[in-house]
């Protein structure tokens, strides 16, 4: 059974079409890199999978069901992380807040949950963060905490929205390595959105490219080609292979870095509508 199925899905936000008639299916245990310029709908896609947004037409199935808010099978690291840098809350309490955080009453934790948190923190190499204040942590350390929290409760699907943002290269690599290992060991399906394809190439199974309201899913060799991406973005795209890296260029500019293309598809979309 597929973990995620999109069948002719159209999603609109405030009258703007973010995804149009998209169909694709993701299988268990796949590491999917979700790519595309800013505003292409990466976050929207994840919010739809979480059941926070309903498609205007088409059907979304997650584990064979219509997505419901609060599905315990899904671990999530949101992109807009309102982590206050001045917050002097212990790492442990920060992670613990998400355990059954949707229940009413006092936030008491049983011993079993405390052990689960300890184990998960250890698994992501963040055991030493449990007693430190959030305000004293680096971006990479906070990212590990968020990852630990997403892994609590043994989810079968992980949605990671730009987990590499604001991390230096060394931390980026260690996060990718960590997630890759979890996926293999526990057969978890991962949607990992990023700005840059190259860092992920070693870890991912397939890529989901978003742009101009469209989605293209396939292996890197299938999707990251000039014809596919040109069609997707509605612009002339060059794909350059150099030294094991792949560069996606629009009129000579690296679109993944500049985000330049973001404006043009929006205009195109308006014209077609």
């Amino acid at each position, binding site marked *: 059974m597929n973990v995620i199925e999109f069948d002719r899905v159209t999603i609109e936000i405030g009258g703007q079409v973010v995804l149009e008639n998209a169909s694709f299916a993701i299988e268990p245990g796949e590491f999917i890199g979700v790519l595309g310029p800013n505003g292409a709908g990466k976050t929207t896609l994840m919010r739809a999978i979480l059941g926070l947004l309903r498609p205007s037409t088409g059907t979304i199935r997650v584990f064979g069901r219509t997505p419901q808010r609060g599905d315990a099978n899904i671990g999530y690291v*949101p992109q807009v992380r309102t982590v206050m840098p001045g917050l002097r809350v212990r790492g442990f309490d920060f992670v613990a807040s998400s355990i059954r955080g949707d229940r009413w009453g006092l936030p008491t934790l049983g011993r079993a949950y405390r052990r689960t948190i300890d184990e998960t923190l250890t698994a992501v190499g963040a055991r030493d963060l449990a007693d430190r204040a959030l305000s004293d942590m680096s971006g990479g350390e906070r990212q590990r905490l968020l990852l630990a929290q997403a892994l609590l409760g043994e989810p079968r699907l992980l949605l990671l929205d730009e987990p590499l943002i604001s991390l230096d290269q060394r931390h980026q690599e260690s996060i990718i390595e960590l997630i890759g290992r979890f996926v293999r060991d526990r057969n978890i399906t991962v949607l990992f959105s990023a700005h840059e394809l190259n860092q992920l190439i070693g870890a991912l199974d397939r890529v989901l490219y978003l742009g101009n309201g469209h989605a293209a899913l396939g292996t890197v060799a299938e999707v990251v080609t000039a014809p596919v991406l040109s069609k997707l973005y509605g612009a002339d795209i060059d794909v350059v292979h150099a030294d094991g890296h792949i560069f996606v260029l629009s009129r000579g500019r690296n679109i993944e870095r500049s985000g330049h293309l973001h404006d043009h598809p929006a205009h195109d979309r308006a014209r077609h509508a």
Partner: protein
Amino acid sequence: MIILLMIVHAMLEYDFMRNAFAAAGVAAVVSGLVGYFLVLRGQTFAGHALGHIGFAGATGAILIGVPPVWGLVGLTVAAGVGMGMMGERVSDRDVAIGVVLALSLGFGLLFLHYYTSFAAQATSLLFGNVLAVDRPTIAVLAGLALITVAALSAIMRPLIFASLQPELAEAKGVPLRFVSTAFLAIVALAVSESAQIVGILLVFSLMVGPPATAQLLVGGLWSGIALSVGLALAEAWVGIAIAYYTDWPVSFCIALLSALAYFVSRGWAAYRSPNAQVQAPREPV
């Protein structure tokens, strides 16, 4: 130690002092508890505004012959619910809150204008008059405190989750707007309590000073709440004691202790971890 006991004993000889300690104790516990979450959520401005809105409620109540505490409670709770309904966009909301805050003070002034013997009443509303608290008022304060603590206990778990990680909480099914609205209604009750002791203008000294100090000193959630409540209680009681022996206004003494504790602990936090951002600009919650 013996001298301390004698001092306490001497103060408690008087009925009005016993009432003052009881009322301040109840209000301080509620303020320290609710204030912890107010500071955690970065909504101190909303707490401040609720006090000012309460001024219009209290003066309006006096004008129509209702005990001011009910006007205070009624209007602040209504305003708290209104603010909660306005949603999570703090930047827009703070402007709207500011406008309503000023309007409320204006209405308060208007009500006082029609209420002839206003000077003493206005001073005690604005700056508190804990030494004039009577037993029925203590009963009202205790009743409100029970409701406040019970309501806060009921929403505490999702409140903490929504405060620390709103995006994730939303994804996990926490009704953010309901939690935020319920919390501001609870804050309104706590503000009403605190205003009885230190007055509308100085609610911060009990609701923000102690929790902000606690959050600088300890990182644990439970230890932070306990310290916040303990500090609020200590500052309120020691403040009354200082006022008793110096004849300074009680609210001034509490405000002074609150500020002292906060700045000393800031200095301590900066000394302990010089690289940490003690008070960094934060994202809206």
